[in-house]
């Protein structure tokens, strides 16, 4: 086995067989994961690169010039996009930010509450509730969109900001993650110590548990933010007024204009490109909270 590795690696490495015996074997093993990761990166980044480059092309360049050759129409595209229906695009952007930002924040709050409660308190039916939640995690949200619409219609709040925000606040996955994280990150000793010192349960939660759960909550927030930002079906069913549309829905209406109208490809591509930027920025900014994970902890084990 090792001699085979040496034989193969030796010509490439150009070193003496004696010194190459150890390292080439390790390098050979690392080659496959690296290649796989590289392929994965190319697979995910290539479409992004396409969007970035295509957004710089003008309508006439879009399909006629080489795919990865930057065009000259970015400023024009941006102007056209901003002019479309009196700048409704930026309204969609604002709506998306509202739905995703506020929705994810509220959802994280609810998840933190319920996850902490499920992890810390022992009460009757706790496991039953948790199992129902798990079932909820397995349920694709798409299935719920129409029942939720019918519910909202009963409350007479369809076609409103609330109708899109409310269903997204309760996220089974978020609660599940929070519980798992709270179990791991908030030791019962710490909670007990808080109680001994006479802190109220609310104080223990907000002052002791939440700071310990921050890295987990950041994850929940990010997941939820991305989920809401990309959500299509729920707002599609709930909203009929395009002033309230999030960006996903808005771009869809730009594409589907009926067949007697040219599709606004350049606008959609530029719009899609701009819509990705906040997500990337959010990831870059929030990423640093994850590293806290290593430093946090209150009890010695």
């Amino acid at each position: 086995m090792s001699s085979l590795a040496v034989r193969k690696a030796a010509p490439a490495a150009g070193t003496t067989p004696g010194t190459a015996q150890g390292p080439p074997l390790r390098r050979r093993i690392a080659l496959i994961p690296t290649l796989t990761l590289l392929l994965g990166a190319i697979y995910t980044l290539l479409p992004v690169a396409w969007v970035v480059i295509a957004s710089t092309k003008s309508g006439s360049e879009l399909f006629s010039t080489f795919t990865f050759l930057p065009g000259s129409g970015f400023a024009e595209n941006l102007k056209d996009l901003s002019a479309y229906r009196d700048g409704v695009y930026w309204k969609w952007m604002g709506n998306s930010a509202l739905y995703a930002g506020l929705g994810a924040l509220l959802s994280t709050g609810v998840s933190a509450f319920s996850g902490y409660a499920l992890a810390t308190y022992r009460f009757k039916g706790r496991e039953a509730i948790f199992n129902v939640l798990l079932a909820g995690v397995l349920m694709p949200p798409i299935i719920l969109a129409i029942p939720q619409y019918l519910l909202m219609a009963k409350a007479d709040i369809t076609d409103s900001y609330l109708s899109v925000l409310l269903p997204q606040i309760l996220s089974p996955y978020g609660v599940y993650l929070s519980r798992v994280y709270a179990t791991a990150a908030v030791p019962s000793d710490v909670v007990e110590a808080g109680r001994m010192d006479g802190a109220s349960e609310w104080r223990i939660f907000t002052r002791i548990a939440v700071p310990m759960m921050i890295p987990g909550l950041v994850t929940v927030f990010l997941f939820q933010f991305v989920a809401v930002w990309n959500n299509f079906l729920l707002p599609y069913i709930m909203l009929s007024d395009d002033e309230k549309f999030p960006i996903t829905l808005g771009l869809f209406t730009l594409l589907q204009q009926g067949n007697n109208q040219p599709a606004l490809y350049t606008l959609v591509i530029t719009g899609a490109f701009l819509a990705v930027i906040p997500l990337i920025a959010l990831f870059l900014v929030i990423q640093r909270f994850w590293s806290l994970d290593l430093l946090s902890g209150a009890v010695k084990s």
Partner: protein
Amino acid sequence: MPNTKRTRLVASTIAVALGATALAACGSSNDSKAESGPVNLTFWSWAPGMDKVVDLWNKGPGKKDQITVTFKKQASGDTLVTKILTAHKAKTGPDLVQAEYQALPTLVSNGAVADISKEIGDTKSKFADGVWGQVTLGTDAVYAVPQDIGPLMFYYRADLFKKYGLTVPTTWDEFAQTARALKKKAPNLDLTTFSANDAGLFAGLAQQAGAKWWTASGNMWKVGINDAATQKVAKFWGGLVKEGAIDNQPMYTPAWNKALDTGKQIAWVSAVWAPGVLTTAAPDTKGKWAMAPLPQWNKGDDVTGSWGGSSTAVTTDSKHQAAAAKFAAWLNTNADAVDTMAKVGGIYPASTSAQTSGAFSSPPAYFPNQADFYTQAAKIAKATAASAWGPNVNVAYTSFNDAFGTAAKNKSDFVTALNTVQGTTLADMKKQGFGVSQ
């Protein structure tokens, strides 16, 4: 844009979810009568520039009658139909909806759109009989007012036809010969492509040949997707694809745009709205295209099918059906309204008098070389064959995409694919509980 596979996926996802919510169907019966006092209506439509037309109404006749219309822009396609049906289940639908002709039977059989025959007066006289038939579904009721139509025509690169010494085909036989002649002279070029990603075009071609895909008598439906006329059309196109006389790649892809723009494909069987599509698909060839009537099955015939087109319907959820019907009639027959829709929204109106007026006195910007474009179009539109849509067109279309997509790709038998579509559609109608006669 004609429906892509993706939007169909969304549509069918919603449809499945709809089915999952077992909700008793609601038969609402709104008594519509003339009413007094201000009325507010909401209108779902995807037509670009519709907001400007609605403004015209709100400042003019609407102000006088105290009927205010609020326009809510939607995305077109099958997904909108499912959205309308969902809203109808919750009885929160808008007052007016834009509906494609082939979607009307679905909306009617779900009880979503109202019969407005009593409210619209003599509107019928403003439209060609074939067009009007699409909104009555062959009954005494009227379920919508026609808005725009899409009669099929033949578009070709006039300069390249000249270069290769081709003549414009007037029959389908000549069409096949033209395709072969081009292959001989320039093996790299194709006359056109057979695309399986939009069933609407194939449906229009079958219509021209005299096909009746759905017919109703009493409570029984008859599905004739694989009738003799459609088989003839399928065999014709299948034969051309098999011998390699035309391309078999789908339309509306970047590759297709490029083929049109660079002159690799030099003709397109399309509808009256093609100039709009060509503007984005083939921007470099502006002024080089020309339009001619669709080739005929028998020499000397004069008949065409249609691809697309839509109407304005009043929903059963509306509490002001009479007012809504009044707006629908105004929208599609008033000269100013139709003219604005045509100019801003690029629609080709169903109303016969509008087809030769105002916006249509000069050719589309993409066709500066064909001054009589719209005069010809109006003549062609008159000879549109009646269409026969049924309550599950979406199922037939999805099945078409799959079956013909595979057949075109493998260059296999189109009639087998046609039988698959027939079988799937029939089975779905039975499953939905429609009475079906063989």
